[in-house]
């Protein structure tokens, strides 16, 4: 697919600009490029589906749409073997802790695609007492794919957008770092206390 055919190109350009502004070593930069080339062409999804969108995800894996030809080879059932998570379906109150834990179990670098109206905003169930109004409140989202459910072509487009993003990221010292220290401290108040004591 040619570059001009994609939407939201400014977003990618901004990312590239950011990269260029910070500057990088020729060697590290070339290695980055090589690794990202590999990563962006073998993004493996996690088998995660709660409702209707999941069935379109099944169609995506079958012969007609065949996501394997793009290198998104197989859906893994274990989060430890997956690169990204396609949130296909509604997330409700009881599912929130489970969903967050699954996200935490994904190995870094990890990505999330919010697939369908429910994952984006709660969709038709927005006013319900038990439905999360979009998954952005729970995990950071990289790509949104609208639809109810999105057709498999739209899902393919969404994952292509994700692989474009992966391609321009800084891998070394960037996304491969396990956790940003500040985030870690924020999530673990005990560690923050300990740090304070050490620093006097």
């Amino acid at each position, binding site marked *: 697919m040619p570059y001009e055919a994609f939407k939201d190109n400014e977003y990618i350009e901004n990312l590239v600009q950011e990269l260029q502004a910070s500057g990088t070593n020729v060697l590290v930069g070339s290695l980055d490029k090589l690794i990202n080339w590999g990563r962006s062409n073998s993004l493996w999804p996690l088998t995660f589906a709660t409702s209707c969108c999941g069935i379109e995800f099944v169609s995506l894996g079958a012969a007609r749409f065949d996501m394997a030809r793009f290198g998104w080879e197989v859906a893994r059932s274990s989060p430890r073997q997956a690169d990204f998570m396609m949130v296909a379906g509604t997330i409700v109150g009881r599912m929130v802790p489970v969903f967050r834990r699954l996200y935490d179990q994904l190995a870094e670098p990890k990505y999330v695609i919010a697939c369908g109206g429910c994952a984006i905003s709660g969709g*038709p169930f927005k006013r319900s007492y038990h439905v999360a109004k979009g998954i952005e409140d729970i995990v950071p989202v990289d790509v949104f794919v609208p639809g109810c459910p999105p057709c498999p072509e739209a899902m393919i487009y969404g994952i292509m957008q994700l692989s474009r993003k992966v391609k321009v990221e800084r891998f070394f010292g960037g996304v491969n770092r396990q956790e940003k220290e500040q985030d870690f401290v924020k999530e673990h108040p005990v560690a923050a206390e300990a740090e304070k004591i050490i620093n006097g």
Partner: protein
Amino acid sequence: MATIKEDIAARFPKATFDEADVLLINIPDDQLHELARSLRDDFGYDFLITIVGVDRKDSLGAIYFLSSTTQHTEISFQVTTTDREHPAFESIADLWSIATIYEREIFDFYGIIFLNNPDMRRLFLNIDWKGYPLRKDYDMESNNILSTESERQSDFTNVYTRGADGKIEVAEKAVFKPNDFVVNIGPQHPATHGVLRFRTAVDGEMITKIDVYMGYIHRGIEKLCESLGYPQTLHYTDRMDYFSAHNYHHGLCLCIERAAGIEVPRRAQVIRVIMDELSRIASHCLFFGTYCMDLGATTMLFYTLRVREQILDIMTKTCGARMTFNYDCIGGVMADVDPDFVKDVKALLATLPANLKEYNKLFVGNVIAEGRLENMGNMSREHAIQWGVTGPSGRASGWSCDVRKTHPYAVYNEVQFDEIVMQEGDSMARFKARILEIEQSARIIEQLIDNIPEGEVLAKVPKVLKLPVGHWFQLVEGCRGLFGVYIESDGGTSPVRMKFVTPSLNLAAVVDSITTGNKIADLITIAGSLDYIVPDMDR
């Protein structure tokens, strides 16, 4: 009907009657259990379709819908209470096993306690959930659903009884035996077909008990419907059992049309039936593929999805979507069929026999398939009725429960087709019943496709639809079994109560009793053969 009414009036002098499409008996709550037993044993109403909880602001109540498996007639009875603090009714869980689950659902939604129910826990919501969401005075913002703290788990359930002094007493009861080894399966598991969780107690390899834990996709559809206009409520039926989207739409439309007195044009009726049967073929094809995948035969999915994609193409041309079609609407269908519709459907019917033959050749006679499916998860006819297991799974146990035959709607009484009833009641029978149903669905479509009458597809329907005061109950056959709609109206533009009776709840509830004594490795094959859809059971 008159004689039953007189009989009941003679036995239960306190009962009052309410003539609606289904006879409704009002009964004081101390005679509830007695009436239920009498209806089951003396009048032959042996199948409990559902229990509907209602909140009428000044009173809480429960309506029980019963059906006779021989006469195919329905009857209902209702108990109400004005006590909003501690509402309590007698449980009928000793008469019908499925009542345990139905009563748990009402406890979850309305806070009504059922005395002597062996398992009075919440069904869909967390243990610590505040309030009862389907009550009219529930504050929608009162619970924080975004908490990432793991929910509190309990191995205990409550049993409520009435003591000698009339006070309600609570006793704690363990779900599992003290020495049980409990394996947790789900909610994120590729073989549970969605976010369902089984807490499985095993003795060695043998399953001793399964605690089915639902609610991971409970979206509160019934509550949402209460704040929407009737045409808007239609869209939720698509998203419960997304394979039976047309069938469920059809059911809700029929119910609203009957209530509003709208006559549906014949052309629309025929189109609806063709769409229902196409959905059934597509649904069973996907079942075929995913079920074989559960057994390790991954390639079958690619073969069966070929037919499904062909059907989805037909749907896309006419309805504009691959799933969640929103095609049926009140008074008919949204738009006329595509000019290529007849040609495409005929092409599908022409390729179907060859495809089915291929599937049979590839999988059904396979020695591994036979070994894993035959004599597994046996369910007798009585067992199926006790748990209300309808659809192909119920018919595989010898229970003829096809709504298309027992309560024909639309043009089903004008077409020739056989109801697939098998006697074995094992996984293999449930599997084969679906393949045979594909053939019957094709037969129905064959009879109709050349005879779609000319004319309008949509009746004249008022822009703002108001239903008269009253209540209605409608049954249709979904792809997985009986689908029912109960609507209660106060004369306004939105319902007071809209209840969906979905087959998957029963299918999941029965997993415990038919897997007990089998090996844990067979749990997936037995549960898979029931073919439940998780958003359908959770609603």
